[in-house]
C-alpha cells in the first residue's frame, strides 16, 4: 500500500508498473528458449553470472590477505562498477531501447513516466542479479581481512548494490539525455561513437585505480590521495568504512559525496527526463531520414575488393549484406563500435606503464605488452558472434528458401568484410602507434605477423558456425557472455607469443614462417567453407519449423 502511495505521488501507475516489470523479467529469462536453433536450457544471463562469480572469487582471494577493508572495498567495487558499466553499455540495446516494447506498448495507455520507471526497474533488477554474482563471494571473503568485522559482508553487499545501480543509472542517464537532445538517425550514430568512448574511458579508469593503489598493497598505511574524491568506487568504499564506525574526515567526506551523487542521479536527473522518454523512443522508431553517403570512390573500391577475392555470388551476397547490416542495423553497429574501446584503452595503459616493447628484442618483460594484440583475437571472435544477431532476424528466412549451394561462401564474404573494413584499419592504427615506440620495420613485420595470425584465427573460429548469419534475435546477457568467452581465447594468445619468439630471430625464418602461416590460413579457410556448409545443412535438417 505504501509503495502504491509513493508511486502515485510521483506520477507512476503502480499496477501498470508491476505488470510491465513482471513481463520484462519473464521475457529476459524465457526469450532464449523459444529462439530458432537454441539448444541450451541455461540462459546467457546465468552463464555470465557464473563467470563473474568465478572471477570475483579469484580477485577477492588474491586481495584479502594484502589489503585493508578500505582498499579491498575500493578495488572490488572498482571491478564490479566497471563490469556493470560495460554490461549496460554492451546490453544497452536490449536494456533501454526495446523495439518490441514500442510495437506492443506505444498505443497502450501507459504514461511515459510509468514506462520509463518500469524499464529502469528492470535494469535495476538486472543490476541486482549481476552485483550479487560479482560481490557476494568477495563480501564473505572480506571477513578474513585484518581489522574486518562480521558486519562487513552485509554492509559491503548493500553498498555494492547501490554503487552498481548508480553506475548503471549513470550510463542510462547519459544515453537517455543523448536521446532527448539528438534526434533520429543522428542519435544512432552518436550512440555508436559514445560506446567507443565509454568503453575506452571505463577500461582506463579500471586500469588506473589498481596502479594508483599498488604501493599500498601489503602495507600498513591506509590509502590516501586527492584522486579518491574523483573516483566513484572510492566514495562508496569510504561509505562502507563510515558504516563500519570509522569516523575519519576522509570517510565522512567520501560518504557525503556518495550519498549526494546517488540522490542526484536517482531522483533529480531521472525525474527530469522521464516524462518525454517514450516519445523519444517512438520518434526513434519512426525516424525515416534517408541518407546515402556512399561515395562513388567507395563504391568502386567495394567492387574491386569483391572482384578480387570473391568470385561466387553467395560470397558477394554475404559481403554486400554484411556491409549494409554493419552500417544500418543499430544493434550491430553499436556492438561493432564498442569493440574498439577496449583494445585502445589497453594499448594506452601499456604505453603509460612502460611503453610498447619491441617484440624483436626477445621475450617481452611486461605481460601487458601483449594486451593490444590479445584483443585482436577478442575482436575477431566478437565480430563473428555479432553477425549471428540482427534486429530484422526474421528476414533470415530468405537463406532457407534461396537456392544457396554453399552457406560457407556467404560467410567467406562476411569474413572478408570484417577483415577489410574493421580488422585491417585497426591494424594500421596499431602499426602507427607501434612505429612511434619501436623501429618502423619491426612495427610493420609485427603487424603483418599478427594480421596473418588473425586470419588463421578468423577461419578457425568460423569452423564452429552452424547457423546462417543475422538469424537470431538479440537476448539479454548474450553480449556480456561474449565478454566472458573472450578469456577463452587465451590459448591462441599463448601460441602467438611462442611463434613470435621463434620466428622473429632472423628475417628469412620469419618470411618462411609467415608464408607457412598464410598457407595454413588458406587451408583452414577452404576447410571452413566445407565445414560450415555441412554444419548449417545438418542444423537445418535437425530443426523443427
Amino acid at each position: 500500500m505504501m509503495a502504491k502511495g509513493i508511486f502515485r505521488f510521483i506520477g507512476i501507475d503502480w499496477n501498470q508498473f508491476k505488470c510491465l516489470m513482471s513481463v520484462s523479467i519473464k521475457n529476459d529469462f524465457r526469450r532464449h528458449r523459444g529462439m530458432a536453433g537454441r539448444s541450451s536450457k541455461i540462459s546467457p544471463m546465468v552463464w555470465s553470472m557464473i563467470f563473474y562469480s568465478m572471477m570475483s572469487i579469484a580477485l577477492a582471494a588474491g586481495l584479502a590477505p594484502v589489503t585493508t577493508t578500505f582498499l579491498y572495498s575500493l578495488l572490488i567495487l572498482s571491478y564490479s562498477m566497471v563490469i556493470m558499466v560495460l554490461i549496460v553499455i554492451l546490453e544497452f540495446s536490449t536494456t533501454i531501447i526495446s523495439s518490441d516494447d514500442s510495437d506492443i506498448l506505444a498505443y497502450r495507455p501507459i504514461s511515459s513516466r510509468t514506462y520509463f520507471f518500469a524499464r529502469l526497474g528492470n535494469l535495476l533488477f538486472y543490476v541486482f542479479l549481476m552485483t550479487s554474482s560479482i560481490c557476494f563471494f568477495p563480501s564473505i571473503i572480506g571477513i578474513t581481512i585484518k581489522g574486518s568485522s562480521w558486519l562487513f559482508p552485509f554492509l559491503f553487499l548493500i553498498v555494492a548494490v547501490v554503487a552498481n545501480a548508480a553506475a548503471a543509472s549513470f550510463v542510462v542517464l547519459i544515453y537517455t539525455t543523448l536521446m532527448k537532445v539528438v534526434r533520429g538517425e543522428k542519435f544512432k550514430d552518436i550512440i555508436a561513437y559514445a560506446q567507443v568512448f565509454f568503453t575506452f574511458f571505463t577500461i582506463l579508469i579500471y586500469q588506473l585505480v589498481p596502479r594508483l593503489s599498488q604501493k599500498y598493497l601489503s602495507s600498513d598505511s591506509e590509502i590516501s590521495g586527492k584522486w579518491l574524491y574523483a573516483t566513484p568506487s572510492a566514495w562508496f568504499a569510504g561509505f562502507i568504512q563510515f558504516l563500519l564506525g570509522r569516523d575519519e574526515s576522509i570517510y565522512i567526506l567520501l560518504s557525503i559525496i556518495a550519498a549526494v551523487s546517488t540522490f542526484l542521479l536517482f531522483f533529480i536527473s531521472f525525474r527530469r527526463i522521464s516524462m518525454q522518454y517514450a516519445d523519444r523512443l517512438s520518434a526513434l522508431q519512426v525516424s525515416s531520414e534517408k541518407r546515402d553517403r556512399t561515395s562513388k570512390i567507395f563504391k568502386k573500391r567495394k567492387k574491386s575488393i569483391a572482384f578480387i577475392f570473391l568470385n561466387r555470388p553467395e560470397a558477394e551476397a554475404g559481403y554486400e549484406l554484411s556491409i549494409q547490416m554493419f552500417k544500418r542495423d543499430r544493434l550491430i553497429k553499436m556492438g561493432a563500435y564498442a569493440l574498439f574501446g577496449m583494445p585502445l584503452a589497453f594499448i594506452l595503459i601499456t604505453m603509460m606503464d612502460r611503453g610498447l616493447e619491441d617484440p624483436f628484442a626477445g621475450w617481452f618483460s611486461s605481460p601487458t605488452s601483449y594486451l593490444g594484440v590479445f584483443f585482436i583475437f577478442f575482436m575477431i571472435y566478437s565480430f563473428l558472434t555479432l553477425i549471428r544477431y540482427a534486429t530484422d532476424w526474421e528476414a533470415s528466412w530468405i537463406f532457407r528458401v534461396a537456392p544457396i549451394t554453399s552457406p560457407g561462401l556467404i560467410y567467406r564474404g562476411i569474413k572478408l568484410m570484417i577483415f577489410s573494413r574493421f580488422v585491417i584499419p585497426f591494424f594500421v592504427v596499431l602499426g602507427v602507434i607501434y612505429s612511434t615506440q619501436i623501429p618502423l620495420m619491426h612495427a610493420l613485420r609485427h603487424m603483418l605477423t599478427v594480421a596473418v595470425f588473425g586470419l588463421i584465427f578468423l577461419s578457425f573460429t568460423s569452423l564452429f558456425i552452424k547457423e546462417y548469419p543475422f538469424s537470431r534475435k538479440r537476448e539479454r546477457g548474450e553480449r556480456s557472455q561474449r565478454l566472458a568467452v573472450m578469456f577463452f581465447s587465451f590459448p591462441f594468445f599463448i601460441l602467438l607469443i611462442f611463434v613470435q619468439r621463434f620466428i622473429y630471430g632472423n628475417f628469412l625464418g620469419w618470411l618462411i614462417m609467415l608464408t607457412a602461416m598464410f598457407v595454413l590460413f588458406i587451408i583452414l579457410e577452404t576447410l571452413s567453407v566445407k565445414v560450415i556448409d555441412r554444419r548449417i545443412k545438418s542444423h537445418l535438417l535437425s530443426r523443427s519449423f
Partner: protein
Amino acid sequence: MIELVNLTRNFGDLVAVDGVTFEVPKGQICGYLGPNGAGKTTTVKMLTCMIPPTSGTAVVSGFDILKNSLEVKRLIGYVPESGAVYQSLTPHEYLSFVGRIYGMNRDLIERRIDEFCEFFGLKDNLHQRMSEFSRGMKQKVVIASAMIHNPDVIFMDEPLSGLDANTAVVLKKLLRNLADAGKTIFYCSHILEVVENICDRVIIINKGKIVADGSVGKLKEMTRRSTLEDVFSELTSSEDLGEVARAFLKSITQDRTE
C-alpha cells in the same frame, strides 16, 4: 467519434499525411484505403497517439490526441500491421498483461480471456508460448488484445492477415455486430473485396491527400466503375495497370538470369 481537422505529418521533406480532414461517426465501419506509402499507417499512428501530428488536430472518443493522449489510448483498441506480441509469453499471460495495463480487474480479465479463446479456438493453446505459434494464431491473440478492454473505437491495420478462412468469416461478422452495438471501426486494408463487403464507408488516400470519401456504391457511381478494385485503380493510378502487367511479364520472361 473520430474527427480529424487538417491533420498533417511530415518526415523531413516528405509530407506523409497532408491536411487530412474527415469525421467518422459512432457505429460506422470506415475503410481507409490507399496504395503503399499513401499515408494510411501514419494517419492511424497519429490517431492512436503513437506519433504526434506536425500540424492540425484530431479528436477520438471526445478527447484531443495531443492534449489527452492517455484518455484516447484508454478508449481505443488497435490491431497493428506488425502483429507484434511478446512471444516468450503464453496467450493467457499476454492477455492478462494487456488487461492489467488497461486497469481491468482479474475476474473480468479471466472471463474475457475465456470468451476470446473460445471465440478464436485458442483454448488448447492458452498456456503454450507464442514463440511456437503460427502467424495466424498470433494474429488471433493480437485481435483479442485489441478488444479485451471493450474499447469504443477500434483501429485495425490488415486484421485478417494470416487468419484461416473460417476465423476471417467469423471476425467479419463480429465487426458488423460491434458496429451495430455502437463501436466505431477504422479499417485499413489492401484486400478490397473485404472492404467492399464490410465497410459502410470508404476513404481513399493517395500521396497523403484524401482523393475519395463515400459509400462503396457512391464511389462506384462517381467513377462509373463496377468494382471497388476498379474505383481504387482509377483514383490512385495514372497508368493502365493491365498494360503495365503485360509489359512487365514480357521483361521478366526474356531471360532467367543475366
